[in-house]
């Protein structure tokens, strides 16, 4: 399964995502430069963390206009798996691929620490390798990760079983403790925590591999 890792000029978790996919996961990975118009022959796309174009404006607000995002949208519309991590989640929201918004953390400060996530549904290509109710330890590192949406949207997300991860101890004020959500087609996931940072025991946790392994399994299943 070939993973494409998008590189915006200000991406800074691109190498980490690439490394997690190629080393612990053992799958091929390639970088997709931000001005490319196509995701090529990738089976899945990761939008990594960072500060896409500096993000001095609202996070992800400029990235949504980049050529690669046109390609990612098309890929998602055709059912391709897209995982947005941290800044990647912010970009997916800005691009309209996911509902809601990510606003400043409740405490107004950047927070970097491991948090506990509860898998809310195993019915997704990003969590199928886990079990509903299972807790994962995965780090967060963001200043603007407070998930926000109106009640109707939140109700709908819950009714359609599209909340994949919740914080067990909400670090940033996200409404209804939401840490990761799916699109309607269930093939696009945005999450603030960094699964690629929890991919080896040496890094303190390898729980993040649940997300990546789920994707591999889902892709294998869809091919079979």
């Amino acid at each position, binding site marked *: 399964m070939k993973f494409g890792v998008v590189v915006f*000029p*200000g991406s*800074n*978790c691109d*190498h*980490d995502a690439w*490394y*997690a996919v190629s080393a612990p996961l053992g799958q091929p990975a390639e970088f997709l430069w931000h001005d490319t118009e196509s995701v090529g022959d990738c089976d899945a796309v990761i939008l990594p*963390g*960072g*500060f896409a*174009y*500096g*993000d*001095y404006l609202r996070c992800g607000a400029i990235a949504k206009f980049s050529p690669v995002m046109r390609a990612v949208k098309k890929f998602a519309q055709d059912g391709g798996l897209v995982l947005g991590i941290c800044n990647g989640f912010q970009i997916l929201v800005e691009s309209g691929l996911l509902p809601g918004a990510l606003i400043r953390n409740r405490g107004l*400060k*950047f*927070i*970097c*620490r491991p948090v506990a996530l509860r898998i809310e549904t195993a019915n997704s290509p990003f969590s199928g390798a886990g079990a509903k109710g299972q807790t994962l330890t995965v*780090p967060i*590192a963001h*200043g603007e990760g407070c998930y926000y949406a109106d009640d109707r949207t939140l109700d709908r997300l819950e009714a359609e079983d599209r909340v994949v991860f919740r914080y067990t101890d909400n670090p940033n004020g996200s409404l209804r403790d939401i840490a990761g959500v799916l699109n309607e087609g269930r093939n696009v996931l945005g999450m603030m925590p*960094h699964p*690629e*940072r929890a*991919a*080896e*025991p*040496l*890094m*303190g946790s390898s729980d993040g591999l649940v997300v990546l392994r789920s994707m591999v399994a889902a892709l294998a299943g869809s091919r079979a």
Partner: protein
Amino acid sequence: MTITPDLIASHQLSQDEYDKIVSLLGREPTYTELGIFSVMWSEHCSYKSSRLHLKKLPTRSKLVVQGPGENAGIIDIGGGYAIAFKIESHNHPSFIEPFQGAATGVGGILRDIFTMGARPIAVMDSLRFGPLDDPEAGPRNRRIVEGVVSGIAHYGNCFGVPTIGGECLFEPSYNGNPLVNVFALGVFKKDEIFYARASGVGNPVIYVGAKTGRDGIHGASMASAEFSEESSQKRPNVQVGDPFMEKLLLEACLEAMQTGAIVGIQDMGAAGLTCSTCEMGSRGNTGIEIDLKLVPQRETGMTPYEIMLSESQERMLLVAEKGREQEVVRVYKKWGLDAVTIGVVTDDGMLRVTDHGTVVAEIPNRALADEAPLYDRPHTTPCRVAPMEAPAFQSRGLNADLAALLASPDVCSKRWIWEQYDHMVRTNTTQIPGGDAAIVRIKETGSSVAMALDGNGRYASLSPREGARLAVAECCRNLSVVGALPVAATNCLNFGNPERPEIMAQLVEAIEGMAEACRHFETPITGGNVSLYNETLGEAIFPTPVLGIIGLMKTATPVTIDFKRPGRPIVLLGGLGTCEDARFGGTAYAKAILKRCWGLPPALDMDYEKRVQTAMREIVAAGLAESAHDLSDGGLAVALAESSFGPAGVGAEIQFASGMRPELLLFHEGPSRILISTDQPEEVLAIAARHNIEAPVAGHTIEGRISIRNRSETLIDCEVRALRAAWEGALAADLRA
């Protein structure tokens, strides 16, 4: 413009220095030339007061690839790879404008690393502030802490380098002069190192990165003067950082270096375009001619003086092979950056600056970079305020003392700070902040690099020589505790006004003490920074020599501070140590509980210390330590408490039979001591015996309590949970006050 004595003085040049300029040029300088000389000959750029003494430091070893004199020091880490590292101060700007001052301090040191071709993989910070509860300066100090921490976070987090540790201490002497010392480390292939030399006559000189503006003009000179009441007017001297631009510059430079077309490269830091041109020319024994009309500018109407002295951030100067400019330019264009040929390397050794065809400056490169005045400033006995005599003192309750000490600003948890730093990006951090040393693995080699920053201004204020030696010893001990072999060091020397003989004496003695200890522990100094004139209205800071030391180790799950399981024997490697009242006055206890400072710092036996460290590394290598933590601020009781603050909440029951009085037994800061919990005490004791060091089994770990008894007397008996609460919440509470 006519050069008047007032103009000379306002450039912080003495009449003698001006006369030397005239004799070097053989004529009066132009206004632009005066500006150029004033920044290059500033204390910050020329080290004119410290150079003579810095020569006493050891700088070589088999592993040192590059010592002082380049953008950063380099050591060989094996496997075909090397690391570049350095510490630098950004003290003055951080007082005037904390957020941008600290942010650009990070930016500057990062450029020093990647200009050599290394990718930065770790940052650490050594910070000093005035007390948060100071009756007068408290509110300002709190604002400075908030600003500095968020500035460091802003820059490092966006750039994508993990900030993995450091230290943060508080003293009234930093009220008007906070210290922000930033350390950075990068990794690269040993045969892909780039140097800041301009060679090859006829080669193009190319300007890359951000455009030049009017910010930071005379920043280097500002950093070379004391503060007065008017210092807030210097805000325009502080530069503004753009971490996204820096990230682009990093990627573009590393990619451009791969083309093979780059001959030499230097960042534009202090003294900007002036420093990078004349230093590259001087190192390459060449001349450089540039035309200012070609320099990318973001403001209109800038004079040659302003362009040459601007310290706008995120800029680099490089020399490329003639005819291959386009290969370089193409890479920078890809990253959306300016890359403009602004001049050429010449054979006459001159820095020649033209503006629309008119020569505005023409100075021998060597005169600027190498012939700055060198002063042997008079030095007497080091300035000291504290009395030698110990006062009478007695604890009013040891349990309460321990809780208060744990909640004191110097000792309390610094989590509030380091959780604002992305300390995990690049997925190499195997030991996060809060440990004795920080560790990153090197994916390319399968090995790891540990690093620690240490400097105790209070010790150094009592004896600069002993304080500097203790800082080296502690730094090396912190590395040994995690199992790393200390191999090389960088230093940041923060002092007051060197024109005062008693301050100069502090500097001289600290350098000599550091030299002695660095020789002893085999950690040559490969570079660093001197920050003088840290004075406000005649009040100097405590002499603050800060060490950053690097250790090499195998990649493995690190030994951490916290006790893991109850029922484990606890070994005090190095023993109880000794202390008399006269050497207790520099401790955290004397400061936080007794509110006094006196005497001398703890006594250090460097031979013994080295044996303790060697034994410790053997214990880690043999996998015998379940936890390990060195004794430093707050001594034994604080180290025991900190070891109990892990997720397991495991405490300790300790029994001594010592004749030392309780305050000293619990809180003295004698060096060469490490707490280890182990399930194989016999093996640990055997290693200690082989190195001829004391290693009493002091007790064992237990659930949830800390109890320390001496003979039949209970000195400490506390719940871990209560102590932890005091330690963990203190800093955030102090900042809210």
